[in-house]
């Protein structure tokens, strides 16, 4: 199809849309989508975006074309109008994606501190972390978990030290673990949710 034929065909289809001819308009949108998909794919890749984003862009352009079709003056050529919309949407799309990328690869202060923090501090830090996590346990469970998991005593020694049976110690540990897991799940849904969102995009 030459440019002139395409101009006539698409302009005619948009005029037909104005009198309610759904079929002609739908066919024209399909043709536009096909043409855009083919020509925009290399551009989108060159802009550093994934090839799978072409379809999103094509949809954006179709929505723009449809939403702003009243701004086309039917006495003027259609293709320059469509070109201006396509170009605007392409640039806007790339701008949006660039902004998202910047947010995704951003280095917030906390992460930077993690990088520059000396490793010695790191150990203390993790001990403090452990204490903070264990704080969700009742006092008796906390003592037993600390003795076994942190200080590394055996179940038998702990049972002797606390004047109770080995079985009771195992049950306590079991309950403590369940409680810790529950707490970890709760905090991860609150704190780490945005991070998971990031990982999904990587």
């Amino acid at each position, binding site marked *: 199809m030459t440019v002139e034929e395409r101009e006539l065909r698409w302009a005619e289809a948009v005029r037909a849309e104005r*009198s309610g001819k759904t079929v002609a308009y739908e066919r024209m949108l399909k043709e536009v989508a096909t043409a855009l998909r083919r020509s925009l794919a290399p551009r989108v890749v060159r802009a550093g975006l994934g090839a799978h984003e072409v379809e999103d862009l094509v949809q954006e352009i179709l929505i723009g074309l449809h939403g*702003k079709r009243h701004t086309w003056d039917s006495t003027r050529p259609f293709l320059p109008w469509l070109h201006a919309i396509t170009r605007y949407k392409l640039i806007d799309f790339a701008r949006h994606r660039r902004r998202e990328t910047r947010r995704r690869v951003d280095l917030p202060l906390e992460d930077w501190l993690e990088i520059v923090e000396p490793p010695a501090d790191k150990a203390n830090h993790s001990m403090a972390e452990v204490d903070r996590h264990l704080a969700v346990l009742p006092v008796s469970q906390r003592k037993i978990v600390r003795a076994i998991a942190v200080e590394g005593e055996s179940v038998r020694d702990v049972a002797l030290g606390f004047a109770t049976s080995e079985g009771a110690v195992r049950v306590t540990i079991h309950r403590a673990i369940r409680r810790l897991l529950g707490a970890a799940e709760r905090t991860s849904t609150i704190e780490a949710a945005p991070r998971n969102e990031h990982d999904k995009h990587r």
Partner: protein
Amino acid sequence: MTSTDDLIRCLSSAAGAPRSASLHAALAVTIAASLACALLLVFSVIGIRQDFAEMALRMPFWFKLAYTGALVFGTSVVALYAATPGASATALYALAPAVFFLALGVTFDPTGFPIMGRTNTAVAFCLSSILFLSLPAMILTFVFMRRGAPTQPFFAGAIGGMLSASIGAMAYTLACKNDGTAFVATWYTAAWVIMAAIGAGVGYRVLRW
């Protein structure tokens, strides 16, 4: 069937829906409503000149009216250009009459009034009045721009600001007490430039679609 095909079917089912008015009609309504709002503010807040009847017959008033009229004409043609994708840039020539009056006013001032106005506060009063009178026009102009499809939001916003300043200045001619054409050409234009800058900043944010 991809999601794009679904989208196309959804969009085309809206074919033949009652069309929104053409941009020409929308712009005409916008300008008329903006001018009406600005005039209302002149009458109610600033007040027209005491010697209005006498002033309306003399040259300075006609110069103000011609200059602001040329601005309204030029910026509205350019606004239509900015709101229409793929429009011809020859629309920019519509600003030529305004530039002509501007040059005329600055270089051949027959009145001999000082360029800074008759009082110390004349410039500040003139600028702030025009900015104030442009506010309703600013809102209406941006509503118009959003109906259109500006493909350069920064430029479209600046033009929107210019159009509203032109309308504000046109309404202000009824109240302006300074008759020097150099004063008018300089300070009306300064208000126009300020509104263009504000419009560009706003447009860059709100005129994306």
